[in-house]
Every structure is written in C-alpha cells, then in structure tokens.
C-alpha cells in the first residue's frame, strides 16, 4: 500500500507538454528534488500553474531559466527578471491572475465547481473576456476552474499511504493543488508510518496522493 516511488520513475511519467501545478510561494513549499529531476530529464513545453516563478535560480524559476516552460499561469513574476524577459520577448506565454482568484480557481478545479464569483478584478484589465454577474447589487467576475495533469507538491511530513502535513507558510497552494490534478506527486521532508499523523492534523488525505518521494535520498 506504500506510495513511495523512485524519483526518476515518478518524474518520467510526466510527458513533454504536460500541464503542471507546482506548489510554493517564492520557492517556499516548492518541491526541490522534483524540480531538479524535471530539469535533469530535460522536460519541454510545460504549462506551469503556480503562484509565482520565484527567482531565476530558485524553485520554479529554474524551469523558466532552462526554457522548459511554454506557458505560465501565475499571480506574480516580479521577482524573476527572466520570466519577464521571456514574456516581453514572446518566448513564453504568461497569464497573470490575482492571487486570491488563482487560489479559488485551483480549488474550484479540485472541488468539482465550475468556477466562482469574485469581486476582485472588476473594472480592471483582469475583467477582459470574462462574464460579469451582478447579484444583489454587487458586481462579480465569473472565474473558471483550473485543473492540471500533474500536481507537484511539497509536504513537511507524509505517511506511507500519502496523508500529508505542511509547515507554516510552506503550505500555501500545495493542499489546493493536491485536489486539482489527475496525478499527484508529493515530495515529503519526512515519511512516517501510518498512524503517526493524527486524523485532525492531516491536511491532504491519502486518497488524493498517487506517488511519494522523500526529500532526502534514503527513500529512493
């Protein structure tokens, strides 16, 4: 029943052109070994859905710098000059989404909702092409659900079945993305026996997780 897999084989499942959700916020809560292995295997034409692209040498920024990414859907690329350069040069498509809207769109994808109505972005360029819906005197934008082929998740602690705990601000988009992808790959800092994580502490239930990779090499 253990979901612990070899890093190389796990990442090999991801084809060029895949749509990936990758957890993390400025690299905090982004799975480092999974990023490293994507680079090593030379993946191409990825679509990456993530809060940001960190810095050119950090986290998701490394994928951008390696030109592994065809399209980015993110809330912020301001700390990554390379993402901005590629965007302006037309080398990489970038779709900018308000951070709270991105969180809800990912959540909606994982929760089986078609979308949500948010007041954020009304009357701004974010509104372009989106239905405006007025309810009880307030105007909202209809923002659609997002899904992905794979979610790459960083967890603090996992049990062998895949129940996950996160730490502090490294949680961010990870539990939302773990709901919204066809295949969920988790890099955990620690992997513990089943029963060690109490039910109330589990943030991502094991049934959502497909593969587990340990942060250190001891688990393959």
């Amino acid at each position, binding site marked *: 029943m253990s979901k612990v897999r070899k890093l190389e084989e796990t990442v090999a499942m991801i084809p060029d052109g895949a749509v990936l959700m990758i957890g993390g916020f*400025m690299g*905090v809560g982004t799975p480092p070994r999974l990023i490293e292995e994507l680079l090593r295997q030379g993946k191409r034409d990825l679509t990456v859905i993530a809060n940001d692209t960190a810095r050119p040498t950090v986290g998701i920024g490394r994928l951008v710098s390696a030109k592994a990414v065809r399209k980015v859907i993110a809330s912020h690329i301001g*700390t990554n000059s390379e993402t*901005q350069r590629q965007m302006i040069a037309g080398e990489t498509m970038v779709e*900018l989404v*308000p951070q*709270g809207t991105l969180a809800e769109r990912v959540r909606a994808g994982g929760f089986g909702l078609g979308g949500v109505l948010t007041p954020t972005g009304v*009357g701004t360029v974010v509104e372009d092409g989106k239905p405006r819906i007025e309810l009880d005197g307030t105007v909202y934008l209809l923002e659609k659900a997002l899904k992905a082929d794979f979610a790459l998740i960083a967890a603090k602690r996992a049990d062998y079945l895949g129940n996950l705990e996160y730490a502090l601000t490294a949680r961010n988009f*990870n539990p*939302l993305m773990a709901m919204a992808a066809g295949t969920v790959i988790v890099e955990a800092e620690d992997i513990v026996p089943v029963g060690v994580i109490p039910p109330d502490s589990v943030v991502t239930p094991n049934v959502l997780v497909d593969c587990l990779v340990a942060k250190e090499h001891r688990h393959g």
Partner: protein
Amino acid sequence: MDEKTLIARRVALELRAGNLVNLGIGLPTMVAAHLPAGVDVFFQSENGIVGMAPVPEPGAENEDLSDAGGSPIGAVPGAASFDSAMSFGLIRGGHLDVTVLGGLQVDEEGRLANWMVPGKMVPGMGGAMDLVSGAKRVIVAMQHSAKGTPKIVKRCELPLTSVRRVDLIVTDLAVIEPTDKGLVLRETAPGVTVADVLAQTGAELIVPADVPVMPIG
C-alpha cells in the same frame, strides 16, 4: 527623520489594537516597526499566516516561514498558518481590517494603480487586487511624487488595481482622504505648506479651512 520613516510612523497611527493588518512589500513593511505603545495588532502575510513577526534573532530563520517576498520572518505566540485559499478568504471576506500598500498612481476618484507599467514593468498583481477589493480599510503609503512627477493624478493612466476607492493616502508631504466629493487634504507633513502639496499634486485637492500638521506618533 527620513521620508519613508515619516510615512511609516503616520500610517502606524491608523492601526487599532486587535486589528488584522496586511502590509505590502517595501515601504508598507516599515509600518510594523512604528506601532504606538499598547497597540497590538496581528499582521497577516498573504502567503499564509496571521501573526507574522520579525525574525527574533540572527540564526532563528526557518526555511518554512517567510513573508510574501520570500524573506524569513518570525511568528508571535498565537499565530495561525493556513493555505492560500484561506488567506485570501480572510482578505476578500472582509476579515482584514487594514491593508497598507504602495502606489504608482492614485486618481481623483481614489482609485489605485500599483501593479504594472505597460511595456516596462510587468510584475503581476500578486495579492494586490484582492487586498484592495477586500480589506475593510485600504491605506496607500507612497512618495508624493516620483522624480518630480506627481503620483496623485486626475485619472490613472496605469492599469488599475481596483475600482474601489481607497480610504487614505499617506505620503511624505501629506495625508489625503478620497471622498465622494473628491480628494480632501487632511494633513501636511511637518515643514510642508499647503502650497507645496498642491504644487506636487496632479489632481484637484479639496483644502479645508483647517489643515493640521501630520502627527507622527
């Protein structure tokens, strides 16, 4: 006192004990260091924590605990961490009492532009659009002008962050309150005259009979 410290100290006076406050990156972050005595507030960082604090001492950094800029932070006793949906639920749902943000432009209708200069700077809006749309009170903390060009303008040329009217603008020269009648000059900085403010403002200001000097805590 330098201009940024002046702005930070004046903004700090707007916070009330028990408030949940989000400080933008840069100048707004400085507000935390200037809270008046006895005013305990909770700082939210939109990457997922209520109860953000400075790193208590060198070496006490934790790789799982950072602010929205990715820099290490600390946490107060009673802090709570959560995912990004919850973080923006707090912001969008009206649970955030105050957000303090930097600005590129604010116009006569009190609308803020602070996330993009087309063709030049495309950082993305991050959490700014949600913060301005959702916080109970929005305070813009910025320099009054940028290299001589007024940042308070008739109508924003830069892409808007939100159509919501911000509640207060605090600059190195003045405190200005956007109202349904227009921008009202509420205070001037120490040593700054009303004429100085008007000269560096690109929008019409309503000037009351009495414009006191900015208190700075």
